[in-house]
């Protein structure tokens, strides 16, 4: 890995880690959502570093463009309920910190002794090859995903739409 790539990785990793920390510890949920956007942009930068440019653009387009906008909408729509007087913002901090730190240590202990190829052995994957996979061997999962999209949209509308007055009797 070239020094400039190493430096870029360091900067992006710092952005991702600090953003992720903000996502889980900030009391203000709106700020937490914005720092999730920081994390997603950092991960998109890491994708570019891994020479997966298409995925980086998909990440920015879908995550930052669509999902984050949706989350911000939901936060604003429920803004009245966000501050319950008796409710603290978080619970069981110490056991949760122990559990997640333990998980991190276990995962790191499991993967660090393994040896990986030090440099990528293969060429970067071109977007054309990815497209050929999606219309060839992976055509069925690709179509199933679109079915899932339709189901999710219809389900979301059915769940979130307000009940009409004549329906409220039963």
């Amino acid at each position, binding site marked *: 890995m070239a020094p400039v790539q190493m430096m870029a990785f360091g900067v992006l990793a710092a952005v991702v880690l600090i953003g*992720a920390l903000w996502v889980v510890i900030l009391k203000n949920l709106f700020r937490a959502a914005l720092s999730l956007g920081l994390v997603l942009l950092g991960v998109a930068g890491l994708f570019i570093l891994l020479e997966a440019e298409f995925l980086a653009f998909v990440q920015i387009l879908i995550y930052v463009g*669509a999902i984050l906008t949706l989350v911000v909408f939901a936060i604003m*729509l429920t803004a009245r*309920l966000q501050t319950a007087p008796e409710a603290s913002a978080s619970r069981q901090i110490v056991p949760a910190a122990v559990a997640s730190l333990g998980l991190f240590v276990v995962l790191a202990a499991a993967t660090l002794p393994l040896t990986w190829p030090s440099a990528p052995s293969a060429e970067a994957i071109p977007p054309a090859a990815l497209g050929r*996979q999606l219309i060839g061997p992976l055509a069925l999962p690709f179509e199933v995903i679109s079915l*899932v999209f339709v189901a999710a949209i219809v389900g979301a509308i059915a769940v979130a739409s307000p009940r009409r007055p004549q329906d409220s009797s039963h």
Partner: protein
Amino acid sequence: MVRFFLLLSHALFALGLYGILTRRNAIGLLLSVELILNAAVLNFVLFGRVFGHVQAQAFALFIIALAACEAVVGLAIVLSLSRNAKTVFADRVDLLKG
């Protein structure tokens, strides 16, 4: 290089778990789930690059699409909850309690 990426995705996953365990707000839980999904996507892309496998990126694409579905349905549930139960806190929802 692979080790650093792996450590980063482990840290992302652990932070997401911490968020799921500590957040009381349902939207905060969804944000933490997104962190965990991103850790998984990062691993897929990393190993697809290291071993030169094409389908890794396709699976990362599927994960991103499913994350979008999950966010849509989850936020619809949160909106419906805020309307019916008048709360967004996951531990205050007791509509099914007799």
